[in-house]
């Protein structure tokens, strides 16, 4: 009987069974950032413990960094204290820190793959729910809490129970103007925001295989939005090609050994899955959220559903969403005025996102009165965008081109919505208050749809706006 990638990786990293029945799982690579790690280092100090394997932990700073000011002290003294604390912790415990002056700083889930740290067949943990992103490489990657960050620092292991595996097969060809973001928003809308509880999602099928690694990252990134703690794609030639030559990828003979190992972790053809779901790519259209969770989405040409049309379990949440968003059932989102366009986040701030959107943005202008900001996911992305002239296209269009960080995805830094502004956002969460204003309203969509909204000043079908491009 065959095994899935998840089972193979799990078995290989299992240290043993703990007294409570959970598994002690070895973490091949640990990533940390400034928000969820300081308390973990504090606990280590309280317990008199060291970092067990410092070379397996990598740090960067992303959530709190201002994107318009790179000199310290930061204007926000709390943010300033956090970056300094991380710097001290990394120095005290011997952890590699991709600090701002390194040129390698960025959102932790963009930096890991970019540096070649994220590798197939490994277990990865990070105190951040979007750690599922790394699954795009065939890694099994878990978002964890701060006490678990402490556990991983102290022992390179954590207590976890195995997940079931749901195979999510996507077949067929995507229509023009339909992107990875639309696929995952559609999957979440269909399976529900808690449909994945207890599961790891294995994304497969011809459509997924046809996606680039960066697109696969967008899909795996939002697994957690569907309740799945991990999501992955089996590694293939594209995966190896992406990793080859990156700073932390194996080199020389070690490369060949690694690739041979990586090929072995792919799910067996006769693997047994706990569940299987099939999606047709041709049925997916550009998707935008209308509500307060990522499952409350519709195709751009659909109307906002009335709560009565939805399954009973979703009605209360839909009512609450309509009230908060100040939308009416039956309305279309297309034509809805926006005030802010946010292009960034670990979901969609990689080179290919900026490149694709720049093709449509070139020669156009952000509509008057719209605050549009573009935030590259890492200093590496920023550098390549500059080399390719992509930053210039965004600037000339009227986007504020910023430095790397999480920015307005969660509004921990000064990039926040004001009042009940509506934001067309390439990020991953539309929760109440997510973008820094308790009454701010977030519409999740693909990066190209964000650009279409920015240039028209309203939610628009990018396929129509850019029809002649």
């Amino acid at each position, binding site marked *: 009987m065959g095994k899935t990638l998840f089972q193979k990786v799990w078995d290989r*990293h299992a240290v043993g069974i*703990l*007294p*409570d*029945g959970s598994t*002690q799982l*070895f973490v*091949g*690579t640990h990533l940390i950032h400034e*928000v*969820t790690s*300081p*308390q973990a280092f*504090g606990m280590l100090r309280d317990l008199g413990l060291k970092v*067990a394997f410092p070379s397996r932990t990598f740090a960067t700073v992303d*959530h*709190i960094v201002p994107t318009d000011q790179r000199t310290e002290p930061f204007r*926000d003294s709390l943010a300033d204290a*956090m970056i300094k*604390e991380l710097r001290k912790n990394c120095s005290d415990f011997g952890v590699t820190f991709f600090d701002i002056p390194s040129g390698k700083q960025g959102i932790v889930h963009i930096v890991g793959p970019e540096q070649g740290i994220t590798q197939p067949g*490994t277990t990865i943990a990070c*105190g951040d*729910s979007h*750690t599922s992103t790394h699954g795009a490489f065939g890694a099994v990657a878990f*978002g964890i*809490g701060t*006490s*678990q960050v*402490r*556990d991983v620092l*102290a*022992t*390179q*292991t*954590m*207590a*976890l*129970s195995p997940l079931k595996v749901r195979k999510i097969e996507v077949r067929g060809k995507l229509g023009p103007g339909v992107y990875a973001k639309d696929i995952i928003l559609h999957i979440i809308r269909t399976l529900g*925001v*808690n449909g994945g*509880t207890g599961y790891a999602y294995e994304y497969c099928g011809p459509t997924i295989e046809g996606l680039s690694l960066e697109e696969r990252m967008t899909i795996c990134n939002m697994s*957690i939005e569907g*309740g799945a*703690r991990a999501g992955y794609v089996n590694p293939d030639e594209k995966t190896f090609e992406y990793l080859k030559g990156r700073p*932390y990828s*194996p*080199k020389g003979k070690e490369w060949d050994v690694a690739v041979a190992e990586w090929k072995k972790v792919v799910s067996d053809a006769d693997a047994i899955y706990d569940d299987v779901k099939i999606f047709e790519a041709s049925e997916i259209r550009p998707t935008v959220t209308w509500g307060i969770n990522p499952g409350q989405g519709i195709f751009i040409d659909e109307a906002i559903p009335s709560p009565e049309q939805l399954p009973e*379990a979703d009605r*209360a*949440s839909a009512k609450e969403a309509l009230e908060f968003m100040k939308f009416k059932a039956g309305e279309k989102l297309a034509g809805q005025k926006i005030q802010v366009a946010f292009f960034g986040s670990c979901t969609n701030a990689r080179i290919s996102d900026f490149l694709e959107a720049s093709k449509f943005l070139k020669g156009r202008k952000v509509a008057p009165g719209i605050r549009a900001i573009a935030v590259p996911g890492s200093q590496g992305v920023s550098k390549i965008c500059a080399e390719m002239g992509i930053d210039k296209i965004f600037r000339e269009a009227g986007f504020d081109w910023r430095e790397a960080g999480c920015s307005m995805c*969660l*509004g*921990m830094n000064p990039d926040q919505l004001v*009042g009940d502004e509506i934001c067309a956002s390439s990020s991953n*969460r539309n*929760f109440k*208050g*997510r973008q*820094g204003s*308790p009454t701010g309203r977030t519409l999740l969509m693909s990066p190209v749809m964000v650009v279409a909204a920015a240039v028209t000043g309203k939610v628009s079908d990018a396929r129509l706006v850019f029809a002649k491009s």
Partner: protein
Amino acid sequence: MSLSPIAQVTGRGVVVAGDDIDTDRIIPARYMRCITFDGLGEYLFRDVRQTPEGKSTNHPIDDPKYKGATILISGMNFGCGSSREHAPQAIARAGFKAVIAGGFAEIFFGNSTTLGLPCATATRKDLTALMSLIQKDPTTLVTIDVEKLHVTAGPLSFPVSLKTSAQQGLLSGRYDAIADLLANLPKVKELAGRIPSATAS
């Protein structure tokens, strides 16, 4: 680390109604600009307890009739979204000892268990009955029996579920795994030798 077993939690309840209450709602990111968990209890549900102008919205957490409640009662998929442990830390530091909901997001559930904050799942029907009972009579004492996986509250008595490992951990005082993990360090070191690590060359 020796911890006291948690076999039973008894206290008054507070109902924070709604499904899919995410960890951004439980504690907005702006209040996580800190390097310790101290004082987080104050920011629990901050954005829904106060208007942007700082006026009270009479959220159940601030409603005098629920004062002293130690059991938080909510809807489906409680704690979804961000992995921030700040969320259960805020709940615990605001004085809560347990949560009863229609279901929990996985990372939140694990984080809460590690802190010794049991998260018991009830069916929609039982939850609705519990919510209306507590709303009617907030002085009702609610008891969660972790061993028998059962809740009693006034005339109500119903089963709840809890992941077996969490139940075992709570009952044996091993809900924080650090001691058990450390005990196996020699085995971990042996395994580490066989697991490649990313190194710069």
